[in-house]
């Protein structure tokens, strides 16, 4: 029996059909205390979820659904290191990776020593690079570090280092991910072999994207470095779960950092995969990020469901997707530093929950993960907000903004600082205005100018639900909290949908077929068994 036939699910369906599904947000806001009621704060993170089409009753029915699906038990299984990734027969211990030995039980406690050992090895390398004592072949200090990785080995460090750009770093960081080699070739034109170090970040150490970029980097280093041992020991670091393959590739043991198969790629920035973050903000900053996430883990593991931020966010998503039939979600950060946050959440959420088979291997009879996309909010306002306001799609939005900007002195009093403060106000004004108009539609138009909107083209239906998340500042700690929040709310949804969020079988076949196709490009005769479209395309590029 699928969850859609369960009592709690049907109760929500009835609640929806009985009128809750037809409510307009503007009427719900007749209650002056609504915002106070439907908002929650944890340390430096504040969530306003009042602009969702929910009532007290909706929430209690959702919580009943969560209880029926044994969510509290699943949370505790996740946090203690039970085998929650059943198709790969392993736990998902990303929360253990950021616990620093605190408040952990079960397998999560057993792995603490291994985790700390690797963090300390990473700290030594990071300190050596940041202090200018990691030397290139000629004896000059390393000034540029290039992370070669893709997916989880790229997005997390890229997103966080970009978000923390106001923190000055003694080394320049670069990221190469794409298999096509253009990023690599462009970047290498601007770097110097004497002072460049590469990190090969690959969970399996078999990822062709990463290894092919690594080969190109190695060729480039060989133009200047005759001694291959020096080349490998001074210009490459490896981060992987596979020390055997790192050694085979030629990385000395001192240059290898480990993590484990029980940390998923898209959950791995808390592990040694996060080294670029530590290089950017220092090991103390990196540990602040872990502590921020751990704060949320503790909250997730202990707060009652009605006060549990990831649980609330996950359940409201369930309501929107499965009962209000909203199949799209926009991630809208109102600070350009969070440029890569939408891409990061796209991977986190869609690779986790983009699935149509439940844990028992049966096809599910309900919608699961929506399409998630996003962009820095003020830029998106000039792009796809048109669709949000007047399109035919219902879309739920997450607005994310910092309360304070830390990149100018609040008391400096210069014209520039004054202008920057003004700009921050403008950004926040836009953030709040957009969520308000999306919610109220025409009702947001002031009485005095209503006449100007008397046109079928100037009609705003509104009623688009949204969350607003305010972070005190953009810091290692708040980023840790924010990412952990989305990880957990994604897990909450997976529990309700009875799917495994920790595998990603969907991405495997394409990798395999790419190998076959590559062989066919090198030898066109091999493409004869392919479809005519693929054959044609291969002929056009085969040389």
């Amino acid at each position, binding site marked *: 029996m699928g969850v859609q036939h369960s009592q709690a699910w049907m109760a929500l369906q009835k609640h929806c059909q009985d009128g809750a599904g037809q409510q307009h947000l503007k009427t719900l806001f007749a209650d002056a205390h609504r915002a106070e009621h439907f908002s929650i704060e944890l340390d430096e993170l504040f969530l306003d979820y009042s602009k969702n089409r929910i009532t007290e009753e909706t929430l209690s029915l959702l919580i009943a659904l969560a209880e029926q699906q044994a969510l509290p038990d699943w949370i505790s299984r996740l946090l203690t290191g039970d085998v929650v990734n059943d198709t790969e027969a392993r736990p998902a211990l990303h929360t253990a990776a950021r616990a620093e030995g605190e408040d952990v039980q079960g397998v999560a406690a057993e792995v603490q020593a291994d985790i700390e050992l690797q963090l300390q090895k990473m700290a030594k390398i990071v300190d*050596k690079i940041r*202090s200018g*004592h990691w*030397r290139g*072949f*000629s*004896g*000059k200090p390393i000034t540029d570090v290039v992370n070669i990785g893709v997916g989880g080995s790229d997005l997390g460090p890229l997103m966080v280092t970009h978000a923390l750009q106001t923190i000055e770093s003694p080394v320049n960081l670069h990221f190469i991910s794409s298999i096509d080699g253009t990023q690599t070739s462009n970047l290498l034109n601007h770097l110097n072999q004497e002072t460049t170090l590469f990190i090969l970040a690959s969970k399996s150490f078999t990822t062709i994207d990463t290894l092919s970029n690594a080969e190109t980097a190695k060729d480039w280093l060989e133009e200047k470095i005759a*001694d291959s041992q*020096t080349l490998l*020991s*001074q210009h490459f670091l490896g981060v992987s779960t596979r020390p055997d393959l790192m050694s085979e590739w030629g990385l000395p043991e001192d240059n290898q950092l480990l993590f484990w198969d029980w940390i998923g790629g898209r959950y791995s920035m808390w592990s040694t995969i996060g080294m670029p973050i530590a290089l950017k903000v220092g090991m103390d900053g990196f540990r602040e990020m872990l502590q921020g996430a751990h704060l949320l883990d503790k909250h997730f593991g202990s707060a009652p469901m009605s006060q549990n931020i990831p649980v609330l966010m996950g359940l409201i998503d369930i309501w929107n997707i499965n009962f209000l039939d909203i199949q799209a979600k926009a991630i809208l950060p109102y600070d350009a530093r969070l440029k890569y946050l939408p891409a990061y959440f796209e991977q986190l959420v869609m690779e986790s929950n983009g699935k149509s088979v439940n844990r028992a291997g049966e096809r599910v009879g309900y919608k699961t993960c929506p399409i998630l996309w996003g962009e820095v909010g003020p830029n998106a306002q000039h792009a796809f907000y048109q669709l949000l306001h007047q399109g035919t799609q219902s879309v739920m939005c997450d607005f994310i903004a910092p309360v304070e900007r830390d990149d100018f002195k609040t008391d400096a009093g210069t014209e520039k600082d004054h202008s920057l403060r003004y700009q921050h106000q403008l950004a926040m004004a836009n953030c709040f205005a957009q969520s308000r108009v999306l919610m109220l539609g025409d009702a947001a138009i002031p009485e005095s100018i209503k006449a100007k909107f008397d046109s079928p083209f100037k009609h705003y239906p509104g009623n688009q639900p949204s969350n607003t998340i305010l972070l005190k500042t953009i810091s290692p700690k708040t980023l840790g909290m924010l990412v952990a929040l989305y990880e957990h709310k994604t897990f909450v949804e997976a529990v309700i949908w009875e799917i495994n969020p920790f595998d990603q079988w969907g991405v495997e076949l394409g990798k395999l077929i790419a190998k076959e196709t590559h062989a066919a490009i090198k030898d066109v005769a091999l493409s004869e068994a392919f479809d005519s479209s693929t054959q044609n395309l291969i002929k056009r590029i085969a040389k």
Partner: protein
Amino acid sequence: MKVSVFGCELSGLVTAGALAQTGNQVLALPIGVVKVDDLKRGVLPRNEPGLDGLLQSQVEEGRLQFEGDWKKGVAHGEVLILSMPSWRLERAEEVIKTIGEQARGDVLVVNQSSFPIGTADRFEAQIKLAFAQRGLVAKVAVVAMPEFISEGSAISDFVKPDRIILGSHDPQAIQQVRDLMRPFNRVIDQFKVMSTRAAEYTKYAVNALLATRISLINELANNAEHFNIDMEEVRQGLGSDHRIGFNYLYPGCGFGGPSFAADVKNLVGTLQSKGYDADLLKAVLSNNEIQKEVLFRKAWRFFDTRLKGRKIAVWGLSFKPNTSTVENAPSLKTIEAFVEQGAIVKAYDPKAMKDFAAHWHHPEGLELVNDMYEALQDVDALLIMTEWKAFWNPDFKRMKQLMRKPVIFDGRNIYEPDRVMERGFRYFGVGRGEIV
């Protein structure tokens, strides 16, 4: 003349001593960590040749006194001299405030310190404003007279200067300072009178030019190695060109010191903070920081990057000979670089070991020894970082016996490569000797 000198670091003490020696009644007032009682007991902050004797004789003659109370300094001096390190600007502001509050009549201030351009004008305006607020009608002049003394030769630099630069718009003030400085202006007229700001800027410009010259010659020397050219031969060719000359033309392991490098850094800082161009000077400074590790890089390559456990001897720690100071010295960076790679360093300097110890913050990896030969026991290489005279003609036989490997990295090019190699040493200079 009655003179008060604010600041009892090297420059202030030399100024006070030299002015007392020419008959002035001098009151010297410390502004920082230096204590009056120490000065009175003859304990000096700097170990400068001849300074001890000069000060002692002037105290005995009764023309020089040390004083802690700035008010007395303001009351005493017809000329008030500011002679402080560049990073003491805040203390100078306090002295100016005291002058504004305490002076009873005309005030002549002479600033020798390397403060930002425009400081002398600003000080003058501040004193004038204070006088106006007190209702005091009196003349105020602040003259810029940048000092050009070098550690190790500070007294002779002061009493036999190349030139004395006087910056002021006030002819009367200029005349007064000329009178004060006349004894040091005997041979030909050395006074160069100019605007206040031009005088301040000249000091920075001199150091900027010299620093650029050193960094350029270092870059040329490093590249000469790639072509297997002996930079010493090139230096002879360059220096004999009368447009270029031989001064400041030695390649080496970088410049340092408390004022020279700091002045250029301050100038770059000032220019950058105002959004002006300083590209060349920035390159000069970063080049120099890289050059400070030139011997480390040679050793790194010579030992195929494997320095862990190697023993390295260092001769010379001070930023130049005849000084006890290691501030900004290449030895600091170089020794740190070796220790960070796990090497063990044994270092000797005739005068600067105490100052080095004070600047050294690593728990292990360094041993300071009291004899230049003791440093060589069982080492894999010797680095020469400062060209102290005692290092020029050492007992090479004894050196070779003591060292585990006879390898010399010479950061000051004090040896003839062929002569040292004949004696069985591997020899690597800067732009000279073997290439690695």
